[in-house]
């Protein structure tokens, strides 16, 4: 379709073996993996310089990725697929899984995002973790995370993708629980780990069903056969994504968005699954936004916001060919502005002795100018104020959602309003208004090793949407892999943008009015039931606890009881019976006289002989 103006709803890309720079595809993953392994194996010897090595390696991957990107650009758009077969992995009967890497426009987008933003986070962490005694370990885990994420987006089959998925799960467990001496961090890590296992279960069932249905787990093989397949079984495919999307809003879920878009051929053939994905996306984006409005810890607001933004992406991914491109577009923009704001929040917390209560911030604009300005770029981007990046992608998602139906469209529009409210609340409470600092903090701007990544990400948050949307660039880039159709919303596009913008401004002004004046340093307790619910994550945890955790605990307790009483009990009884009997009677046989032993051997031989005779007769 390279030269044609008509867009195709289905993928048109073809894949070829690697040549030129693409023979080094494996190096993208190998570099950060090498860093992780090296730092973990060499131990304390690398404490002094390990973090520099761990920062250089992802940068190396990024440079390699840029070279490959230029290589892809030099080819016609339909021939930009590369599959590198590394080695045979599992071959059992008809089942084949290779270790193979697949590069195309979709993977390229993710690789650039992961290595680019990942490298900036590494650089930032040099400053942020400066005084931590376990800094080397932190960088090893960061490298592991990058390697696993790259494996996930470069795998050419579902089984290898699963390996990457597990690697990301492991790395996020290690990173969330990095300060494991804090009970909250240890508990959060454990929770993330257990919840990821739920997602794993869904994904593994999905992979098994794919193999049973299509007889292969390799992407091209599977997609080539979708048309002939039994479509009812495809509805199971959505398993992993909503499960983890609802509960665990982290990078893992970005992996969920990738999974849906990568499997676009399967989802296009399964409208029920798509509908479910749309519903999950819409619910997630509203829930996340509501949770974000009630939290006082800056990172928790951002976590709720991530959940909400991923809701947007999942919603878009569920819309089919009109949405895939915009899901990825928003994911890229979100990668920039959310990384920007998380690092900005980290910068603030760094100078506030790791406090994260926004009621104790305020007026930081005067003391941390760079953090303030870069955060402002992220704030405007996430609200979708033109010309910042969020405007381009979020508006497109709202248009596509409206083209699908009024309900998802309205959910996306209202979500934009709530987003503006909670982000302005965060921004006002942190950077504007009056200082409510505790006496022991002396805020100061972070060192330049932290502010330079912030500046780069701030610039990217500002311009990425405008640049990528220029002349439909992102659509043309991704269309051969994902397919693309122009959404046709029922009302004119300028009207949609206008209404959304009005909602955003109203939300932002409401928040500004309420929070620019005095904010009590302790959270008010007499609040509406909705606020109470939102403070408790809309009872998501309570629900999980009641539905999944408690029965599980009762089950394990019952099993332990059964084990102690019945199984161990019977074994112990058998043991003591044997011991008692042998002690009393059987030991009399041990006379110590070798001739009596010879006698019993002879008697035994005769007995055997007699038995053999009898049996033969």
């Amino acid at each position, binding site marked *: 379709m390279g030269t044609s103006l008509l867009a195709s709803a289905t993928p048109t890309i073809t894949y070829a073996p690697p040549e030129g720079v693409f023979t080094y595809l494996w190096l993208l993953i190998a570099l950060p993996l090498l860093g992780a392994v090296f730092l973990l194996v060499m131990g304390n010897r690398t404490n002094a310089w390990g973090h520099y090595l761990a920062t250089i390696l992802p940068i190396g991957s990024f440079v390699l990725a840029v070279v490959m990107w230029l290589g892809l650009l030099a080819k016609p758009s339909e021939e930009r697929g590369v599959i590198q077969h590394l080695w045979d992995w599992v071959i059992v009967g008809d089942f084949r899984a290779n270790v193979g890497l697949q590069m195309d426009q979709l993977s390229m987008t993710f690789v650039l995002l992961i290595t680019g933003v990942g490298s900036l986070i590494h650089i930032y962490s040099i400053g942020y973790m400066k005084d931590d005694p376990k800094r080397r370990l932190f960088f090893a885990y960061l490298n592991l995370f990058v390697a696993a994420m790259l494996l996930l987006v470069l795998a050419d089959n579902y089984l290898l993708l699963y390996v990457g998925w597990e690697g990301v799960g492991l790395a996020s467990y290690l990173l969330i629980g990095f300060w494991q001496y804090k009970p909250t961090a240890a508990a959060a890590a454990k929770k993330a780990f257990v919840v990821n296992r739920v997602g794993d279960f869904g994904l593994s069932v999905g992979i098994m069903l794919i193999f049973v249905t299509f007889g292969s787990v390799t992407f091209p093989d599977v997609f080539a056969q979708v048309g002939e397949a039994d479509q009812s079984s495809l509805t199971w495919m959505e398993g992993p994504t909503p499960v983890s999307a609802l509960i665990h809003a982290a990078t893992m879920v970005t992996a969920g968005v990738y999974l849906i878009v990568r499997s676009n051929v399967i989802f296009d053939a399964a409208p029920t699954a798509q509908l479910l994905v749309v519903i999950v996306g819409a619910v997630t984006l509203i829930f996340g936004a509501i949770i974000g409005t009630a939290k006082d810890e800056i990172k928790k607001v951002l976590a709720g916001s991530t959940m909400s933004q991923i809701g947007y992406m999942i919603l878009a991914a569920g819309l089919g060919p009109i949405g895939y491109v915009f899901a990825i577009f928003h994911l890229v923009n979100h990668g920039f502005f959310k990384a920007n704001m998380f690092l900005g929040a980290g910068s603030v917390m760094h100078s506030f002795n790791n406090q994260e209560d926004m009621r104790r911030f305020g007026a930081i604009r005067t003391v941390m100018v760079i953090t303030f300005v870069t955060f402002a770029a992220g704030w405007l981007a996430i609200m979708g104020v033109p010309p910042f990046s969020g405007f381009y992608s979020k508006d497109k998602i709202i248009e596509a959602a409206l083209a699908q139906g009024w309900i998802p469209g309205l959910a996306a529009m209202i979500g934009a309003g709530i987003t503006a409210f909670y982000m302005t609340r965060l921004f006002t409470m942190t950077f504007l208004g009056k200082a409510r600092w505790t006496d022991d903090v002396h805020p100061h701007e972070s060192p330049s090793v932290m502010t330079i990544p912030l500046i780069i990400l701030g610039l990217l948050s500002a311009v990425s949407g405008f640049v990528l949307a220029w002349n439909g660039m992102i659509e043309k880039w991704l269309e051969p892999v994902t397919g693309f159709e122009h959404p046709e919303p029922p009302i004119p596009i300028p009207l949609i943008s206008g209404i959304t913008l009005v909602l955003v401004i109203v939300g932002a002004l409401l928040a500004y009015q309420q929070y620019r004046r005095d904010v009590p340093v302790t959270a008010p307790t007499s609040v509406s039931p909705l606020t109470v619910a939102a403070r408790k994550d809309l009872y998501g945890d309570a629900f999980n606890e009641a539905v999944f955790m408690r029965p599980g605990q009762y089950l394990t307790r019952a099993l332990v009881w059964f084990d102690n009483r019945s199984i161990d009990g019977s074994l112990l009884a058998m043991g003591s019976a044997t011991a008692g009997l042998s002690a009393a009677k059987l*030991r*009399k046989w*041990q*006379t*110590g*006289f*070798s*001739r009596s032993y*010879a*006698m019993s051997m*002879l008697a035994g031989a005769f007995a055997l002989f007699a038995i053999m005779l009898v049996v033969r007769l």
Partner: protein
Amino acid sequence: MTTDHYIVLSAVLFSLGAFGMLFRRNAIVVFMCVELMLNASNLAFVAFARMHGNLEGQVFAFFTMVVAAAEVVVGLAIIVAIFRTRRSASVDEPSLLRF
């Protein structure tokens, strides 16, 4: 001379060895009785091998000889060691390993 004769001779020798092993106390004699039993079974092996006209039994006899030779080495060493400590070659004497 049929196979039966050899088998009867083998059974007689084996029984002599078994009874001698059970009723004699001198370790050297017991040891000789064990050898007698082994060679009785050798005789039976060879007799059956000749009856069937194949070599398996003969080969087995060689194995038995090798095992017997090894047994002689170990067994005589044990007997000498016991005699040195107890000044006696009775098999009933060393009966400490009991309940």
